[in-house]
């Protein structure tokens, strides 16, 4: 039997990314963000999500893509992994689709761009769209970030 996966689709630039729907708690419009000093550059700060203080990451920054101005389309995707809640700032998010599990291929070897380790795979959709499935645990992996920062610093 073919297993179907519900996926939230969001965009960074022209590329489409997917996160399993059960990892996503809510999608919010842009809201005031309080800057947190002395943290990773891609951490934009913290927001008040209905009484809970949640850190927000610019996903472009996390993937070392060029950061852009926020627009009306900009969304904060709140994901929860284990006990950790984090908001991802993405260019837009407005689709939920079903994809078949076997439509996900392992990530291709890429040179540059988003590091392959952040990717769980690439899903080929019917209308020839490619959907990049994120490996949330890696995206939220802090130990690797610390290394990165220290090399840069």
């Amino acid at each position, binding site marked *: 039997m073919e297993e179907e996966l519900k996926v939230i689709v969001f965009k960074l630039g022209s590329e489409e990314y997917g996160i399993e729907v059960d990892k996503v708690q809510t999608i919010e419009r842009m809201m005031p963000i*309080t800057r*947190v000093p002395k943290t990773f550059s891609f951490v934009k700060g913290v927001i008040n999500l*209905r009484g809970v*203080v949640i850190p927000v990451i610019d996903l472009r920054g996390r993937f070392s893509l060029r950061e852009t101005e926020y627009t009306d389309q900009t969304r904060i995707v709140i994901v929860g992994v284990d*006990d*950790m*809640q*984090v908001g991802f700032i993405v260019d837009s998010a407005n689709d939920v689709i079903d994809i078949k599990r076997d439509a996900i291929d392992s990530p291709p070897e890429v040179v540059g761009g988003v590091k392959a380790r952040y990717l769980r795979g690439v899903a080929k959709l019917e209308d020839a769209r490619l959907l990049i499935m994120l490996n949330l645990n890696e995206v939220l992996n802090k130990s690797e970030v610390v290394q990165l920062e220290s090399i840069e610093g």
Partner: protein
Amino acid sequence: MDMNQYLSMFIDESNDHLQSLNENMLQLEGSPEDLGIVQVIFRSAHTLKGMAATMGFEDLASLTHKMENVLDLVRNEKLKMQDFIFDTLFKSLDALENMVQDITGGGEGKADVSSIVASLQAIESGEWTGGTAPVTEVNQSSSTVTPSAVELDEFQYSVLDQSIAEGHRVLYIEVLVSEQSQLKGVRAYMVFDMLERSGEIVKSFPTVQDIEQEKFERSFSLYYITTKEAQELEKGIMSISEIESAKVIQLDQETLQQMTNQAAATAEVEAAPVPAPVDAPPEPSSSSKEEPKKPVVTKTAAPKQAAAPSRTIRVDIERLDVLMNLFSELLIDRSRLEQLASETGNNDLSDTVAHLSRVSTDLQNIVLKLRMVPVDTVFNRFPRMIRDLAKTLDKKIDLVITGAETELDRTVIDEIGDPLVHLLRNAVDHGVESIAERVAAGKPELGTVNLRAFHSGNHVFIEIEDDGKGIYRDNLLRTAVKRGVVTEEQGAKMSDDEVNQLLFAPGFSTADKISDISGRGVGLDVVKSKITSLGGNVTIHSTPGKGTNFSVQLPLTLSIIAAMLVRLGSEKYAVPLSSIVETAIVQREQVRNIHGNKMITFRESLIPYLSLSEVFGVPDFNDADEQETEIVVIRKGERLAAVAVEEFIGQSEIVLKSMGTYLPAIEGISGATILGDGQVALILDPNAFIK
């Protein structure tokens, strides 16, 4: 069946039972004859065993089962409580606690408890070298008292002793004939017959004649010399029908002597003109040479109500947090509504909003109260700790707890345990003198440590007071000078209380040698900083020769604190009021550079000047551009520092919020709060600014 959903319940209840076991054991130690307490202990252990077995924690279940067996003997008066049993049971409780902790941490609750189990088993079977053949089984319907240990005359004793010395096997056998047996004498005869075929019965009780005439209750016992294995014999006896149980114990010279001692004691009881077998069971022989020491008497001044039916429910702390969050949302909406109502000027709306405000204020109080927990949850482990401590140090200490029902916020409760442990240890180790010293000073042998909790205003006080030797100013100053904490001139000018406060100075310890009890490499300075970090304070008062009082002042709750809101450009920060000394304005030229550090003169002393905008890299403000700068003078212990900000917004009560697990710990930031307009403001950690 998925047990996970029951796990937290299991852990909570196990902890409750362990706590009650500990408390009741301590009580029992004070009055070992009280079988009522034994019953309570037994029931608790029994429930715990059942729960553990249901949840599949085999080690836990089997250890409790062994404890239960021992307790069962005690409550049926077949065994007398005494030091060794207490110690073993306490050790078992410790082991159980560790197991439950392991389970709490996601483990299987496994632990190597073989030595404890062995001790328990030895107690149960009476093999334990402390010598306790089960105590007299009494049957009121008959005048025959059946002492368990058989009294030997000198000749018999020497025969047995000799046999052991020569390497023969000397056994003590106790046989219980089934209750339904119609022909007890016959059964007994069969046992004797079997035994005589492979060895020699030296002595039996009752005598063989009595047994033959059925002049005995269900049990009889005998000393026996044989070449056969104890187990083999036991099996042999049990194979005779209508024998309920047979206990075969191999004796060595030591146990033989103990048993005969005990028997002699029994005989004395019997010989007493009015035999009172129930009330005067034989003294446990092992400790008969020295009086059993009761190192600690523990009592709770406010007696607990006996098992009042529970009027509480357990609520997951996370759910409470969610409730708090939702509630703060409601408060933000409320202030928005109030603002709108005043803008529109609609009377009906204003009235409704005013009512809503009142209701929500009451609600807020209740929600906050839900987080309050009696300090009892921390205090309850102290009696046991003091008992063990006193025992180790060979002191006699009475721990008197008052105000255990005083309530504190859950977050404070979680944090306050360690500092209190430290202070109590300090009181027992350094405060209360040894028995000899106390006697010499004309004090009672029994030292008293008072542990008090009470409310006062917006604070809770916890006091630890001992009636020990107190603090001698000269000694303390000498040590302080020696350790370089103060100079002699400084010391001479200090008041007594200031001198006492030196105890909290970092790296200070008056103990000449580091003891196992309170000198674990951390001094009272750690206690002090912990309490300060909770927004509290600790003071010492001492009368030399009379005792010392440590008074810990704590805020009612940690989740709401008073803070000063400050602005730097577009950013707002909250500074805890508890660490602010004062606010002021300084001119640019007052800030001086001293060896590369910015300093200002404040109240005739130089203190460091910190630019918050520089430290935090605030994008739209820098105090260096200002002619006049607002400063907040903050304090960490005795040291001060000035932190430059742009503007004071005002004082406010703020609700502390965690920043979640993703962000790394940021130096200088202790958390976040949500302001009335829904914005998040970061809370400064002033301690980080003073190094």
